[in-house]
């Protein structure tokens, strides 16, 4: 039944990129394999944020908190318990979604900026716990040397694992984006008052969206541990959330695939400009200013517009 939305036009380019990525590891240096894996992880967390920010119009300012909760959950389960690895992998997203439900339930009672402010406060609380509870979380030091099953412990193994999990997540996210739930969420973004008047329980809908988005953020958190083998409190810090937010804006927050591009740009900048100057954020700042003036719809939004596909991609129309 989803044949129609997965046509050549909509997923063709991404499928080509996916196949190219599958064949890359044997021919590129290990460092690039690692950077690409980091991009996959970051792309997933940015995509999950965009479900609520770009499609839902919610000011989810502290999305990194749920990413961090996913990562800490799996790190703690693998180091403090003797449970099998897969239990930790499953628990990460579930715990992240539960925390998302708890924080979201308070936040959806507020609107716009107040929503964002409350979320920053509650998210920072989680950061404070991770930072202060030294005996459990290792405080400032974080948790290091988390061992992974041998199949995904090498950098190539981690690369393939994150790539495949990302691909599966993107397919599911795309289905949600194109579903009645996704359509209704976009309608709420455009006009919540009108949605109430056509019989939609706006708050509940937003809360479900937050739970789904934080679940995916939790998956990204698990992947982070797979790639890095460690966790630290910066994962939960609001600065990281801001970076993820910027990735959505940079790529194009009203599009589906924009945040992937945003994440790739940010990670590349940090890595390759960061080699030359520690003030890479200055360059990021200049790029952002230019973006606001020249590409307000984001990079991917601009590309779609250029090729005249924006109307179809962003705001799915009739059946024809």
């Amino acid at each position: 039944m989803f044949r129609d939305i997965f046509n050549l036009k909509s997923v063709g380019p991404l499928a080509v990129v996916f196949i190219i990525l599958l064949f890359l590891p044997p021919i590129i240096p290990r460092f690039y394999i690692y950077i690409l894996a980091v991009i996959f992880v970051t792309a997933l967390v940015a995509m999950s944020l965009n479900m609520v920010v770009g499609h839902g119009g919610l000011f989810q300012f502290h999305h990194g908190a749920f990413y961090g909760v996913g990562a800490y959950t799996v790190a703690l389960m693998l180091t403090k318990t003797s449970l099998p690895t897969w239990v930790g992998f499953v628990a990460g997203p579930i715990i992240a979604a539960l925390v998302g439900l708890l924080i979201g339930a308070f936040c959806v009672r507020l609107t716009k900026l107040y929503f964002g402010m409350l979320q920053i406060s509650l998210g920072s609380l989680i950061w404070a716990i991770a930072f202060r509870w030294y005996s459990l979380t290792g405080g400032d030091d974080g948790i290091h040397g988390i061992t992974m099953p041998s199949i995904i412990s090498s950098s190539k193994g981690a690369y393939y694992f994150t790539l495949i999990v990302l691909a599966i997540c993107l397919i599911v996210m795309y289905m949600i984006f194109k579903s009645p739930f996704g359509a209704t969420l976009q309608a709420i973004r455009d006009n919540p008052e009108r949605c109430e008047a056509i019989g939609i329980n706006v708050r509940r809908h937003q809360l479900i969206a937050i739970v789904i988005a934080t679940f995916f953020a939790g998956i990204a958190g698990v992947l982070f541990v797979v790639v890095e083998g460690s966790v630290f409190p910066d994962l939960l810090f609001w600065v990281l959330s801001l970076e993820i937010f910027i990735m959505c804006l940079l790529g194009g927050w009203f599009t589906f695939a924009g945040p992937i591009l945003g994440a790739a740009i940010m990670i590349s900048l940090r890595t390759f400009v960061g080699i030359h100057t520690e003030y890479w954020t200055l360059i990021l700042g200049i790029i952002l200013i230019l973006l606001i003036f020249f590409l307000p719809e984001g990079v991917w939004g601009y590309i779609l517009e250029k090729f005249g596909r924006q109307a179809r991609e962003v705001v799915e129309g009739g059946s024809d």
Partner: protein
Amino acid sequence: MLQVEEMYKSFDDFKAVNGANLTVEKGELVAVIGPNGAGKTTLFNMITGQLKPDRGNVIFNDEDISKLPPYEICRKGIARSFQIANIFPRLTVFRNVQVSVLSQQGKSRNLFHPAQELAVEETKSILESVGLSDKAGNTAGSLAHGDQRKLEIAIALGNDPELLILDEPTAGMSPEETAATMELIKQLANSRGLTILFCEHDMEVVFNFAQSIMVMHLGLTIMQGEPDEVRNSSRVQECYLGGA
């Protein structure tokens, strides 16, 4: 079908609605008239739950709905349009109406079926009936004013309501557009068996179309009756028609 009893609403010291009463019978076309600031929109907002009344009841099909949130009132069978075009500007015209039909069908939370395959026939027939079929693929925000007003009504029809409430459906329209819109509304009422409650300040429109008219002035209901009754009432003339 709908009874509004002794409604009051004030904003700080301003008494927007100060004793409003209204009865709507099934199948009727009922108008609320009154000069600007008479409290018509506030009254409508209280009926459909956007505002909570300070006092008073709204009885719909023998049930008090005055304490329900808007989405539940909608599910009881009351849909409405807004005075200022209140649409989903980034979505297509088709999607604007489809979202409403999906809500009516209880499919808004369906996560794993493509939206483009659902509620298609219903949406197309509504767009057809308001004359927007040829613009189905356009982005709603780019429509001309008159078309946005039509879309506004189409979104409300998506809920397949028993009672359709229209807040100044012809606001900002030329006389020709106004006539065409009122004709459309009448036609919709007949073909879909709708009961319609609307407000207007254009007298001619109201006396030509409404079967029952409620007159408001300074938040207070002066009277409700048939057009002739209202036209001949000395009280109405005194505080409204005379001044116009």
